[in-house]
């Protein structure tokens, strides 16, 4: 498979890979349920960081559930309703680009939007059901993508007030940020560099660890905890082997599975942080406002 430059794959650049809308400042923002409950730290720290970087995230009014996972068969129209409704809300409120943070929301909305663009039959049926003339095209972005393409890691490096030197971090992508590459196109599905780029700009010491694109067990946490624990332990041990002080994730479910597995199935002592927390910290926000858990806060005090 030929991997095109990231800016082309995400539809945000010309054919040579030059980003065409660098400098764009205002984005629609879809937080999703997790960011209002267990993963508030991700929401709060991302908002603070964006404010400092001059990016305005305008939260979608009255947003509804993204549907959590997209159906992978061609005629499951019911499963497309939830994401289609969110895309419709975004368009009605004047956003043709919607930024997300939760990997579940990002993957679901981006894939649903990709599917609807290519399946006129599905588009027609859903439009009829939702009682609209036609379904709009909305570009779904991840905040990491906004940081890379619209802000740029060089500008972030310049904006850093408190370089996170000496922090050995293992960037953990998981599945939903990367796969399927033809539909997501955020980065290379097997050798991604996006989080590495950001974390290096913050001054972190980024370790190379083998499990960075492995699955955390995802929703098996609900139906088959044994295998979820097994998946999480593989990732944790891989981080330990790479001598990482922290795992850095972007997905609230990965974060939960990794922490839950440490609590009951073998504690490797590796705190799991969100990338946005480290970003806001490096940009000068006080650590106590960024929602670090006890383990993370203690480890951060130790390493600084």
């Amino acid at each position, binding site marked *: 498979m030929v991997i095109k430059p990231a800016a082309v794959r995400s539809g945000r650049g010309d054919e040579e890979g030059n980003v065409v809308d660098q400098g764009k400042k205002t984005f629609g923002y879809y937080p999703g349920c997790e960011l209002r409950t267990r993963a508030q730290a991700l929401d709060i720290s991302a908002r603070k960081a964006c404010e400092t970087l001059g990016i305005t995230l305008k939260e979608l009014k009255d947003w509804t559930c993204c549907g*959590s996972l997209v159906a992978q068969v061609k005629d*499951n129209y019911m499963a497309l309703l939830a994401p289609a409704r969110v895309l419709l809300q975004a368009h009605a409120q004047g956003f043709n680009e919607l930024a997300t943070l939760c990997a579940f929301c990002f993957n679901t909305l981006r894939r649903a939007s990709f599917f609807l663009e290519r399946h006129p039959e599905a588009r027609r049926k859903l439009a009829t059901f939702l009682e609209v003339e036609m379904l709009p095209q909305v570009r779904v972005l991840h905040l990491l993508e906004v940081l890379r393409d619209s802000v740029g890691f060089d500008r972030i490096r310049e904006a850093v007030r408190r370089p996170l030197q000496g922090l050995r971090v293992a960037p953990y992508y998981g599945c939903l940020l990367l796969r399927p590459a033809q539909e997501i196109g955020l980065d290379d599905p097997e050798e991604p560099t996006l989080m590495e780029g950001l974390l290096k700009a913050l001054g972190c010491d980024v370790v190379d660890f083998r499990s960075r694109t492995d699955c955390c067990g995802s*929703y098996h946490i609900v139906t088959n905890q044994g295998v979820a624990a097994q998946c999480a332990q593989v990732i944790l041990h891989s981080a330990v082997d790479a001598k990482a002080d922290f795992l850095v994730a972007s997905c609230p479910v990965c974060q939960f599975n990794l922490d839950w597995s440490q609590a009951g199935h073998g504690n490797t002592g590796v705190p799991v942080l969100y990338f946005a927390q480290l970003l806001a910290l490096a940009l000068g926000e006080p650590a106590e406002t960024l929602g670090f858990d006890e383990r993370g806060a203690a480890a951060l005090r130790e390493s600084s």
Partner: protein
Amino acid sequence: MSLLLSLGRKDGLAKEVAALSEQNLYACYQCGKCTAGCPVASIMDDPPHQIVRFLQLGDADKALKSSTPWACVGCLTCASFCPKGVDLARIMEALRTVRLRRLDAPFRYTQEDGEWLSNLPQSAVVAAMRKVTW
């Protein structure tokens, strides 16, 4: 290991799975890279590549009754590894869909699950409900 296959059953399941998943089942040449990369292969009755083999050989029942599609969590490691561009996760989803549409799912939530569920990330709960229950 011996396998008993009921070959050539004409129930059309392979066709149905191919249509639902929009994948060419016969593109698979059984290299096993999907199985090698699968993070949940340890809890599967049959390794992932064998499910495709069952479908290729026309033993639909074996593919349909296996625990394998229900163990697949859709991480798409297999799809990114496959040298023939087969998206195995879609085939697994098609097999789940066939059974869900027959109201034949292996999981049902009960009242007792409530307390455990309330502690979990809601996106995982919603995802599980949409993937493994009807």
